[in-house]
């Protein structure tokens, strides 16, 4: 069962967003870029949550759509004169959405582990497309010209000093919009049907729902949203490489979801921040970052069954019993 943060939870999330937005007042450009990275990963993990937490489909090829979204900037010919983000972003959505539609149409013919293997294999296929063919511009990646903020010839020029802060604001805005959009989607008939498929696909089918098309819709939408995240990554870094599509990124996004909490819509956001923070701390204390990461994943998988969003503070609840209905997350049921 997937929960959306209730009133108290929403206030906490809103405060966290404000705290992130206030970082440019005192944080260094390095830390602004680090937080920007976490925000982009949060978008990516959130897009995957639509498949994993909402529809109950575990995909191991989601990074491919992230990568296609990032490469959209390169493919739109951003080598030459810079293009408005109002063109590159829809292009990223379209390209990654179409890629997801094609992969999903085939992969959804399989279930469970087969679905996992099939999405992984098709993700790898897209990796090879950008790695080996002239389309991608080389196995080592390419620099891209940043899309500009311009509309009808009016351009907002961002200076180099301001860029980390501006990109953080933009990324945060996109993340908030994506979260609110998904929370709204869960209230629609489509969203409720997807939750129903996760709970019991057979029952949904016997009730007359066309589960294949609903799942394909979810897969395509999730791919398009991953494309948005990838586009924001490319725009923030001004560099794209085939490595963005690599399957270990898909596994990392799954990890963010599990780390943050499979059962909450905001879980992936917590998970992404926790994962990026963990990587940064691990890098400070040891050269063996992967060792720390591996051990943490093991610990999470063996111990923390409901993720960070599942951690409750019992003393607080006992102290304020009257606040119970408000703190309890609102459940969305099909």
């Amino acid at each position, binding site marked *: 069962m997937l929960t959306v943060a209730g009133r108290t939870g929403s206030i906490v999330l809103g405060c966290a967003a404000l705290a992130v937005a206030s970082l440019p007042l005192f944080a260094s450009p390095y830390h602004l870029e680090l937080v920007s990275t976490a925000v982009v990963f949060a978008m990516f993990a959130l897009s995957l949550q639509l498949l994993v937490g909402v529809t109950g489909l575990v995909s191991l090829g989601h990074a491919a759509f992230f990568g296609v979204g990032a490469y959209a900037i390169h493919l739109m010919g951003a080598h030459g004169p810079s293009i408005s983000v109002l063109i590159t972003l829809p292009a990223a959505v379209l390209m990654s959405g179409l890629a997801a539609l094609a992969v999903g149409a085939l992969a959804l013919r399989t279930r469970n582990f087969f679905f996992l293997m099939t999405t992984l294999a098709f993700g790898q296929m897209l990796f090879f497309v950008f790695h080996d063919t002239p389309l991608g511009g080389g196995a080592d990646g390419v620099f891209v010209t940043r899309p500009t903020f311009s509309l009808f010839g009016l351009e907002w020029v961002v200076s180099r000093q301001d860029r980390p802060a501006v990109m953080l604001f933009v990324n945060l805005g996109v993340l908030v919009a994506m979260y609110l959009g998904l929370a709204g989607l869960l209230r629609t008939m489509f969203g409720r049907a997807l939750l129903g498929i996760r709970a019991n696909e057979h029952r949904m089918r016997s009730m007359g729902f066309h589960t294949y098309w609903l799942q394909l819709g979810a897969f395509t939408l999730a791919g398009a949203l991953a494309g948005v995240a990838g586009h924001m990554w490319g725009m923030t870094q001004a560099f794209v490489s085939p490595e963005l599509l690599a399957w270990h990124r898909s596994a990392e996004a799954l990890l963010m979801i599990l780390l943050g909490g499979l059962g909450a819509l905001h879980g992936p956001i917590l998970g992404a921040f926790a994962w990026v923070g963990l990587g940064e701390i691990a890098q400070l204390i040891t050269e*063996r970052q992967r060792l720390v990461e591996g051990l943490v994943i093991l610990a999470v998988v063996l111990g923390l069954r409901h993720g960070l969003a599942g951690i409750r503070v019992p003393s607080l609840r006992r102290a304020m019993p009257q606040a119970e209905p408000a703190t309890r997350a609102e459940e969305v049921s099909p």
Partner: protein
Amino acid sequence: MSGVAAQLLNGLQYGLLLFLISSGLTLIFGVMGVINLAHGSLFMIGAYIAFVVSGGTGSLWLALPAAVVGGLALGAVLERGLFRRFYHREHLDQVLLTFALILLFEEGRSVLLGNDFHSVPVPAALDVAVPMVGDFSYSAYRLAVLGACLAIAGAMFLAIERTRIGSAIRAAAEKPEMVDLLGLDARRIHMVVFAVGTALAMLAGALAAPLHSVYPNMGHGFLIICFVVVVVGGVGSIAGAFWGALLIGIVDTLSKAYLPFASGLAVYVLMAVVLLWRPTGLFARS
């Protein structure tokens, strides 16, 4: 003409190697319902065992039993210590458990042996070309690998079809509840399957070491190709893994030799076609 024959033999040999890896993958999945992403890392460990043992003793022949024994032991320990707890957990948990294992195995390899590429010499006795038809000759080591894989495949078919433990494994793969009803020890079956699957992957790594050289993350590519094999061949059946592996091995090798622009893509296109035509795999029991 001899070029095509050599490529076909290469494909056959590559396919048989893929069979060794994917048979373990498909059995472990079929019997225990666990997907093991770290299966490729086991292959990598086998290759590094070949590198270390043949470097230390000068003989690849000692490396092969070392890989098998090490694989049986490692598989039993992993099954006992970790995987046993995950048979009834969600797929997501299994994915992350095995992803963590990949990170730990690769980091362990990096700590012990570094991140360099290494080549492993072909055993001197087999470092010759065997004359085939006319002026066409072929590497003796590749022929030996081909023969060894065929022998192992034959032994596996016999073991699965003719022995008591084999029929118990088949029962466990088809109807797990039957194993309990018949009073068989499911825990022992699980351990045997996991240990044998691990040993096969590590043996494949040791056999492949002189052909593919030894390098970090070498298991990833093999793992994904073996997923394609399992999807194309059909789940849980050794025969499916066998024919699927041969098909993928030959298609991959020929496409890399003759269609350079589509080198990495041909097998995925094949997988897409199979999914459209028979989503349960070409050789799945209906």
